[in-house]
């Protein structure tokens, strides 16, 4: 079972100034949509960057597909798509950007890219620096999903997206997890979306894990995720 887990975290500790992120134990199995929620400064982005190998830990271990994402980023990122609104993309035309990226992934799916471009209403002849914020977010989503990653990590994917964009995003995420071998980890402040799509939840507050488990079990009947977070003091 442990070999099948996509993400395994044990005794994780990260110090950044006075902030400390501490996750004693957490795993992500295939075929799940995992929502990471919590207020600003809870450590959501830090955790996702650790999983993607963009940041080192100060203690404990993170294994993704059985590899150390910081020490062996190439092995992890060939099957991990990471999207963050903070990460810039190459300053070139969209079609050339996608062509450049495609060379690094054996599983790049040009047909999927074409359909995503149409769904997200992006013109491949546009230049990256001429895009609006929302269009930039859409482009980042496409680059993260284009190679059909086994694990898709989305950090605030709805930032800057309009309603149509959010709908397309949710449809795309649900498309991905139709394959039982693939999972999505998504952090967002749009709680309604998280509640709608996530099978599992990880609730963080001030760097500590407040709750973790199945969404329907944690939230319970008759209340929303927002009300649940209120009740746990994680707002």
């Amino acid at each position, binding site marked *: 079972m442990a070999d099948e887990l996509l993400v395994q975290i044990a005794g994780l500790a990260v110090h950044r100034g006075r902030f400390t992120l501490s996750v004693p134990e957490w795993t992500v199995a295939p075929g799940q949509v995992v929502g990471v929620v919590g207020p600003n400064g809870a450590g959501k982005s830090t955790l996702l960057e650790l999983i993607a190998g963009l940041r080192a830990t100060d203690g404990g*271990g993170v294994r993704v597909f059985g590899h*150390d*994402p910081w020490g062996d980023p190439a*092995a992890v*990122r060939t099957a991990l798509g990471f999207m963050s609104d903070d990460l*810039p993309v190459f300053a070139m035309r969209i079609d050339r950007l996608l062509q450049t990226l495609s060379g*690094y992934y054996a599983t790049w799916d040009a047909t999927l890219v074409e359909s995503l*471009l149409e769904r997200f209403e992006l013109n491949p*002849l546009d*230049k990256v620096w001429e895009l609006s914020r929302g269009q930039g977010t859409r482009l980042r989503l496409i680059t993260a999903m284009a190679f059909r990653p086994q694990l898709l990590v989305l950090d605030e994917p709805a930032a800057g997206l309009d309603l149509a964009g959010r709908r397309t995003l949710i449809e795309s995420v649900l498309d991905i997890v139709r394959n039982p071998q693939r999972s999505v980890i998504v952090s967002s402040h749009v709680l309604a979306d998280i509640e709608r799509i996530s099978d599992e939840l990880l609730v963080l507050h001030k760097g500590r894990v407040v709750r973790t488990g199945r969404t329907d079990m944690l939230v319970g009947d008759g209340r929303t995720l927002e009300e649940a977070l209120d009740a746990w003091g994680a707002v």
Partner: protein
Amino acid sequence: MTPAVCHFAGRVREAVGSPRLLLAGLACGVFAMTLDPGFATHLRLSLVLKMFSLSYIGGFASVIGPGATSSPGQGRFWSTRFLGVDTLDWAHPPLPLGPKSRILVESLAAVGIILLWRVILEPVYLLALPGGSSVGVPGFLWDRLVEACLIVPCAVAWMSPSRFRAVHVIRILAIGPLVAVWSLFAPRLGTWSWGVVAVVLTLGLLEFSQVRLHLTMPFRGRTRSGALVRRSRPPASQLRRDLWLGPLKNNLLLTACTVVALAAFAVAHGMPKGQSFLAGVVLGLSGAFLFLPLGVPLLGRQDRRGGTPLFGGWFVRAWAALPVRRDALLRGVYAHGLIWGGGLSLFWMTLPDLDDRWLIAPVGLAASVSVGGALVCAAVGDKWRGMLSTSAAALALGAGPLAWGLDFLFRVWIGWPPVAIAIAAIAGGLGGLPPLVHLVPRRAPNT
């Protein structure tokens, strides 16, 4: 028929079917013949053909006359639409091409038709008329090649819309002298015309680079999936490949044009052809390596958000989600700096009549490592080390004049050459060593 075929067929019909253009071409031809009444008949006929050909360019550009599609109207003669600003978005069927590709394709199509016309029809006159055969087939074809080299950049510059009206007015004023050069001199002046080609080529490129995509050209064609994908390789192998080919592939046109322009200028100024071509190639290619490591722009913002464009660290962050090692990426960027420094040194070495050639090696080495360090710092966003490396590179490049100045002022007892080498060495150490901290592979604490 595909939209592209329909489009170009329509353009040919516009050019042929516009009586204004044909009359203008005829008038220009008659005027040109009056410049030298002693012209042989076949040369007169040749001139008329050239002027007819020019009318084709006018038709293709839709600037001199918009053909059968519509008319600009009397009061709008100087309007931006009539001057070409809006022509790309005007009365054309949708094509899955960007404005620049469209301009290039239309220019090549226009010049192709001109050449076809001249290569087929002119030999008939040349061979039929007394003295016409003395040119010979190789000479005739060489003349056509020179002509094409001159007229392609002219056509590109002419068809490129600019945001500034003044540019269009200047173009209209400049077309007369250009036509005179083309029709009267270019095919017969051989080497001299290469200098003109280089000038026009540079102007054409400048104009071409001004084309903006914000001309409202919505993408109305379907994307070809092939355009969005390339053959994938293992990430480390792909990175190595992009390190060498990326700067050239993603900037091939500009690099090639720079090489040709530099070589043409150098030949025109008396440098041996082989040497000047080598110099042009080296400098053009190494320039591409400097600004486009892996084919991706190193400097400048990667999107609309703020931040300093010089040492913002956008480059490394843009690569962060890809399956490549950061240290391998930065080593490649450092190597690009070394390539540029090496290219610059080689360029200097090819210059004739250069004194103190021995100084090139130490100065070039110091400048190379400093520029490599500056590139790495720009890539990761290390402002202070980057400024140090940039200053050190400037110091290394100025080591010779600085040492000479010190010797002139203070009469250094060992002479200025050793001082220059010492300055270059210090600059190389200051500029090249500190950024090396970014090239060290990261340890793996997550175990």
